[in-house]
């Protein structure tokens, strides 16, 4: 508990968290704009009852997307901030004083995971409150109901929180494993932003030219696992949602366990 208080104070006493929060707002605005457009197109082509497909999916999906606006950027920022919780200790040479106060290094990493989860929930809460304020306005402007009584909307919001949390744990784990601040940030951002497309192509190619079942393995790509968790299976042979969540938990566990074992051995100098 002392450690969690210490880590929280560390986060609060540097400018990092509010810089990230300030970056989040315009990105969230863009996402709302995009989802607004998607809602408008979907509603105008298919009428308020929905059911058609304009490339944005069903009306339920579009509405759920509107209420989880800012997910892509929010998750990215939460993950990077979580990684920086760890890497800044080495970047600013504060690891010495941290590990002098707490020689059991695994406890420090565990405390950072708690902070990562708190950051994830805070960012999720911010965008969710904004979405719940803006979403009904957008929908009523388009002549549709607010859909706040639809269970899919609340499920989407809850899953949104879950992916924020899971990716923050992946972020802490990656920070422990990579340790270099710039290295960790770039690796995570690249994997998260472009990795999905590139790896999806790789898996499609593998399944086409090498062995068909490779396609099912593509959900091992963390971002695709995340998509599975949020959107549910897209192809008939895809596994159920919770498998996606499990894969993300697996990434968080593997990176942080391996990273912690390495950190325990590492010389701090």
């Amino acid at each position, binding site marked *: 508990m002392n450690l969690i208080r210490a880590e929280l104070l560390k986060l609060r006493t540097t400018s990092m968290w509010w810089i990230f929060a300030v970056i989040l707002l315009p990105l969230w605005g863009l996402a709302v704009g995009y989802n607004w457009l998607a809602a408008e197109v979907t509603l105008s082509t298919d009428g308020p009852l929905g059911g058609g497909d304009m490339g944005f999916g069903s009306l339920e999906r579009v509405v759920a997307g509107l209420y989880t606006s800012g997910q892509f950027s929010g998750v990215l920022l939460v993950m990077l901030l979580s990684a920086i919780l760890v890497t800044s200790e080495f970047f600013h040479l504060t690891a010495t004083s941290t590990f002098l106060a707490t020689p059991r290094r695994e406890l420090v990493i565990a405390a950072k995971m708690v902070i990562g989860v708190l950051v994830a929930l805070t960012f999720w809460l911010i965008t969710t409150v904004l979405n719940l304020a803006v979403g009904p306005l957008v929908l009523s402007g388009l002549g549709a109901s607010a859909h706040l009584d639809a269970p899919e909307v609340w499920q989407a919001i809850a899953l949104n929180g879950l992916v924020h949390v899971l990716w923050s744990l992946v972020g802490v784990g990656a920070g422990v494993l990579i340790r270099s601040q710039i290295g960790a940030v770039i690796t995570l951002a690249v994997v998260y932003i472009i990795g999905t497309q590139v790896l999806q192509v790789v898996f499609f190619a593998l399944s086409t030219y090498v062995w068909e079942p490779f396609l099912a393995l593509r959900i091992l790509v963390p971002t695709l696992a995340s998509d599975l968790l949020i959107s549910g299976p897209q192809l008939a042979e895809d596994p159920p949602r919770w498998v996606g969540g499990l894969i993300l938990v697996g990434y968080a566990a593997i990176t942080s366990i391996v990273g912690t074992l390495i950190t325990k051995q590492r010389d*701090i100098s």
Partner: protein
Amino acid sequence: MSQPGYEGITVEHLTKQYHRVRAVDDLSFTVHPGRVTGFLGPNGAGKTTALRMILGLVTPTAGTATVGGARYVDLPDPLRHVGAVLEASSAHRGRSARNHLRVICRAAGLPDSRADEVLTMVGLNTVGTRKFKGYSLGMKQRLGIAAAMLGDPRVLILDEPTNGLDPEGIRWMRDLLRALAAEGRTVLVSSHLLAEMQQLADDVVIIAAGRLIRQGPVAEVLGNTAGAARVRVRTPQAEQLAAVLRDAQLQVSADPDGALRVFGADPARVGQLAFAAGVELHELIGENADLERAFLELTAGKAGAR
């Protein structure tokens, strides 16, 4: 050596092998409470590595280091037992000194008020809210000491704490460490400033190339080396005096200007021997024991960065 209340440092066969370099090589020594122990060695001797191993920051290849009978990593409240000031220790550039200390307080379960107390103690209370990036080298060094004192520890380990301090700061540090040792605390301090160490330390541990060269009370280490007290004497009958002194089991050498240098005796003894032999003296000067000279002799040929 782990009787209750014993708060010394015991290093046994400590070894650290880096990729190519054996930074610390089968090093054993003890540091006693109530005394200031100087930890001396040329650049690259392995002082920093040894201190970091004592503090559990670097994993030894072999051997053990204990503080008050326990390994640092096994101490329940390490900061309440041991305070450390290390070279490369630092604070987040964007965080204020006060917040840096408060973070440590929280991790160690100490009240936040300790942060302000130690800032006052090191004279940084007026600049405590300033960000670390605006600190001068001397201010950083003082902040390091403040952090070490947070838990009011019985054992202090300092790696070149006088680096970057002005003369007044060095004196302040010397008085502080002496006072802490006088309260019965254990103080282990590494330094290059040998004149400084001679005024400060009760004991010394001298290492070179990772190995122990000599350890013991300063006077004892000096007594056995070129650093010992010596006498410069000038006489027209140099050869006769040299013979007399050698007969008295004293070591004698000739300076280039013809004066004699006598080791292991004070001016009174040299004067008395000369008088008894009827030798006329023109100059008789006692030179004090000198840690720097002793250090250079002991580490000659073993120094050099590795």
